[in-house]
């Protein structure tokens, strides 16, 4: 059942739930960040409107830097701006940033310890018709391996807004991964969210409280799919837990351990390569601290293709039905 303490949207499973792209939440949040802190500057590489950064550009033109299609240069400039006391927020598509400028991020931001916030949009299969070239499925891995870098994959537009505002305050650099597609706003203003904390969104009904057979750790666009699956499974008498692990790095070790101990097995769910992704970070932690069976739902060492978001999620076994099926198979084992 839904965890009432988390204060999720009461209309969470309604047909009429509002659907907004997390990019819109980020764009709004960036303007608020700019109003709250004059050190905030924004840089973009020729995808300003797509990233919703035009809202910031229009409000603070003197604090916006258009670099053109030059993602490597954009990182270096961000590093120099950080050295000048600014808090740079750089945006592009995840395939290009951190895809094309990773070494610059490593050297001039992480090793150099200059703080910047990276926003990689169009991450995951949900990018849809543009096809594999534009569907970033490797960016969590690329950013997760870097010291001094936090990684976030917001689950809805409100969370994306909270993510950018938290990132401004955070001690280190932050990578925020955004999908292209609209998604239901299932959280509310009151839902607490912070870097380094995951949330128990769906918990087993009271009689099963002490033991949840399966716990799903999900991030990003797929968190809502996991909730839909959990609801339908409950109707079939299967009680699971869904953890929103959108704050991927640093990992909320306490919460991860808590639910590992209550579970027979774990499923990790992400729109990313299984290698090096969010699920890997859970596995790295649990294999040392509380080993148990883990099923990784993600992309299995291949590229995407063109299609509608929902068609692609079905094709790559990441939709609601695939989640339900996986839970049932895990219970059987």
């Amino acid at each position, binding site marked *: 059942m839904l965890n009432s303490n988390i204060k999720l949207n009461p209309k969470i499973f309604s047909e009429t739930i509002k659907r907004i792209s997390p990019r819109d939440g980020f764009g709004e949040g960036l303007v608020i960040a700019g109003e709250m802190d004059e050190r905030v500057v924004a840089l973009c590489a020729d995808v300003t409107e797509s990233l919703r950064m035009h809202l910031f550009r229009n409000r603070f033109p003197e604090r916006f830097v258009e670099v053109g299609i030059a993602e490597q240069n954009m*990182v*270096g400039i961000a590093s120099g701006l950080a050295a*000048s006391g600014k808090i740079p927020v750089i945006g592009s598509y995840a395939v290009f940033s951190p895809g094309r400028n990773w070494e610059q991020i490593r050297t001039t931001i992480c090793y150099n310890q200059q703080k910047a916030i990276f926003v990689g949009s169009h991450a995951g299969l949900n990018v849809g018709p543009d096809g594999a070239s534009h569907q970033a499925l490797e960016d969590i891995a690329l950013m997760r391996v870097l010291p001094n870098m936090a990684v976030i994959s917001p689950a809805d537009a409100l969370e994306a807004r909270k993510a950018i505002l938290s990132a401004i305050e955070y001690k280190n650099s932050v990578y925020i991964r955004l999908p292209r597609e609209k998604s239901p706003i299932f959280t509310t203003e009151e839902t607490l969210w912070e870097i380094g904390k995951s949330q128990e969104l769906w918990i087993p009904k009271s009689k099963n409280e002490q033991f949840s057979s399966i716990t799903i750790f999900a991030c990003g666009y797929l968190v809502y799919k996991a909730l839909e699956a959990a609801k339908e499974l409950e109707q079939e008498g299967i009680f699971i837990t869904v953890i929103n692990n959108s704050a991927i790095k640093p990992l909320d070790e306490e919460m991860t351990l808590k639910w590992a101990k209550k579970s027979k097995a774990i499923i990790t769910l992400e729109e990313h390569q299984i290698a090096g992704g969010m699920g890997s970070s859970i596995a790295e932690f649990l294999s040392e601290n509380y080993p148990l069976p883990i099923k990784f739902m993600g992309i299995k060492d291949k590229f995407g293709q063109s299609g509608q978001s929902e068609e692609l999620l079905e094709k790559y076994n990441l939709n609601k039905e695939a989640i339900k099926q996986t839970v049932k198979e895990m219970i059987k084992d």
Partner: protein
Amino acid sequence: MKLTSKKMEDLTITIRQEIMEMLLEAKSGHCAGPLGAVELYVALYFSGILNYDPKNPNWEKRDRVVISNGHYAPLIYTTLAHAGYFSLEELKTLRKLGSNLQGHPHRLLLPGIETSSGPVGEGLSQAIGMALGAKMNKEKLQVYCLMGDGEQDCGNTWEAVMMAGKNQLDNLTAIIDRNNIQIDGFTENVMPLEPLKEKYESFGWKVLEIDGHNISEIIKTVNASKSVFVKPVVIIAHTIPGKGVDFMQWEYQWHGKVPSSKQAEEALRQLRSIKGQIESELD
């Protein structure tokens, strides 16, 4: 720090020897580039051009020096030690475990280092960020970017060159050590850079070309660069790689290797007796 011309000339001789001694002790590192760029560093740090305060390395109004070619570490370190950022004694620790003198400079370990560097081709972008930041902050300071010529191969460099032209960053002076060598050979064989002057000009820069071993010419030109408005300035400083050691000069093979102890002895012998040679060229 401001030294007389005579003292700057003497310092170039001392620094060349120290570079060789450091490399001999470290047993790895880069020879040719650092030896060839000594006059550039001495002119910048000891003629009074540069605003800096070793006692207050993070002084807000300091000029910024972004070193894009971090493999010049031995030259960078000797220069900063003589400028007063840390003791000359520390130079012996180059490349050793636990040393502040990493193989390539790390900002967090040494005062006077603006950026951690090593991978070439990204310093100019950082310098642009600092120049833009200074303009946003309404600070009147000059940003210097010291680059090699090999890194003119990098796409990142040209992204930055285009950007500096677009933003008319007249608080930015880039200095290219045009020594014509890189790891795999002579620059014009590896990847032709010429006409380098015309390339920069076509990207909206003011280009000045100098003899990179002539201290007075370096000082005059860097000062002139500060009075150019609306355009960033690049100074192409023609230098001799390995300058001062006859078997290293113009030899690209010395880009990234260190001499054997016998070769180093010979190099040091030559560097100690270099005085007359350098002076005559400075006249």
